């Protein structure tokens, strides 16, 4: 994929070129939105909105990391969504556990290759992570989603959130500290295979 050429064509109004970029980046965009918002439908809306905004504002792209530019657009869409959510709080239709936690619907995990046990492990892991992420302030959550979940380097994260590197470093450390404490309470729920892998990593 010749990304610069596609971007140039898209800037001249070529929607096909832009859609090629969409296909390349929609996965990271949607998953970033999902981790920030914690809701599939809102994440899908934010992603779609982000791509539309990106296409309209494509002429303002002045080079650099296109991924960071796109993620900035989706991050802004997520912030808008969170603000709307705060103004108009809704009651989830999903059933809740006795602790008041929403029961995850596992339809998105329809991985034909995964065994039921693996599926369950993934459900538990994701549930734990999402729960801990949602307890973080939005700014910290965004940084940790971008750096640790999506694997962006500090420079790209700084470009996405438009903050200096020092701020990114500090926010990431704080976010990791809080997540560490939170995830410790889910330790028993984490997949066994994953725990073994972590011990090897240490």
């Amino acid at each position, binding site marked *: 994929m010749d990304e610069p050429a596609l971007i140039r064509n898209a800037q001249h109004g070529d*929607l096909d070129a832009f859609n090629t970029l969409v296909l390349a980046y929609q996965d990271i965009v949607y998953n970033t939105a999902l981790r920030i918002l914690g809701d599939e439908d809102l994440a899908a809306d934010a992603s779609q909105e982000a791509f539309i905004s990106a296409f309209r504002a494509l002429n303002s792209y002045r080079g650099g990391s296109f991924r960071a530019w796109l993620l900035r657009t989706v991050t802004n869409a997520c912030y808008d969504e969170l603000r709307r959510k705060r103004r108009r709080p809704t009651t989830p239709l999903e059933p809740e556990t006795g602790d008041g936690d929403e029961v995850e619907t596992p339809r998105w995990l329809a991985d034909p290759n995964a065994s039921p046990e693996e599926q369950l492990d993934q459900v538990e*892991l994701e549930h734990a992570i999402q729960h801990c992420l949602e307890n973080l302030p939005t700014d910290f959550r965004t940084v940790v989603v971008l750096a640790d979940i999506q694997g962006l380097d500090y420079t790209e994260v700084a470009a996405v959130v438009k903050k200096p590197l020092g701020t990114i*470093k500090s926010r990431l450390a704080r976010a990791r500290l809080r997540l560490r404490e939170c995830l410790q309470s889910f330790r028993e729920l984490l997949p066994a295979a994953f725990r073994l892998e972590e011990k090897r990593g240490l």
Partner: protein
Amino acid sequence: MTTPSFRDMEQLSAFLDGQLSQVEKTRLEARIQLDPALAAALADLRQARAILRHTPKRRLPCNFTLTPKMTRLRPPLPRLVPALSWASATALLLFILTLGTNLLGQISFGAAAPMMAAAPMTSEGYGVGGGPAATQPPVTDNTQVIPTPETFVMTAPAATLSGETRGGGAAATQPPVTDNTQVIPTAETFVMMAPAATPSGEARLVAPAAAPATKATPEPVNLWPYIWLGLAAVLVAAALLIRRASVQAFRRKVGVKHNS
């Protein structure tokens, strides 16, 4: 063994990501070897990061590709945009100028209208009174008149008529000032008043034309508003044509691709 400070945790976090300088890294590694609390904190951070990196990726609920309808696709503006912007600005300026010129014309015309109405009266009323009245403008007491060019166009024939009728040539050169009346003459004043001081021989030739004051002096037609207006119209039309051509070209380009 001490509890790591936040500064330590920040350093450990950056260390994990390879964001420390070589000096900082060497120093921190030495401390980690000596301090088990730092080593434990590093292990915890590493584990938290590893868990996050294993966050399952969700499959997309749908593709997010765009259609022209979704984007309400608008063609990119042609490269003449700056020129078009300037054309719009110029057109607006010209419009304002035209409007302003017309309005100013109306205002000054409105100011001259009473003079026009009074001009015939001058030839009759002041004619009886004798010479000095010949150049007096038709003003009343306590009135200040600052004549405009139009004023003189209207008043001059009346003065000529009076001068011819009563023969008050010498008096006609007096400044047209009456009681409590101030008239500030301009260069035009003298130009226009000069015929009034002309002896009756010349005045006779002028007199017959003076009866209908408006016919005597042909009003110069101000063409500038029309020129400006025409220019503005041409600019706007050019802008619209260029824009239309650009839109059509864009639709051809996009339409072909998305219909295929």
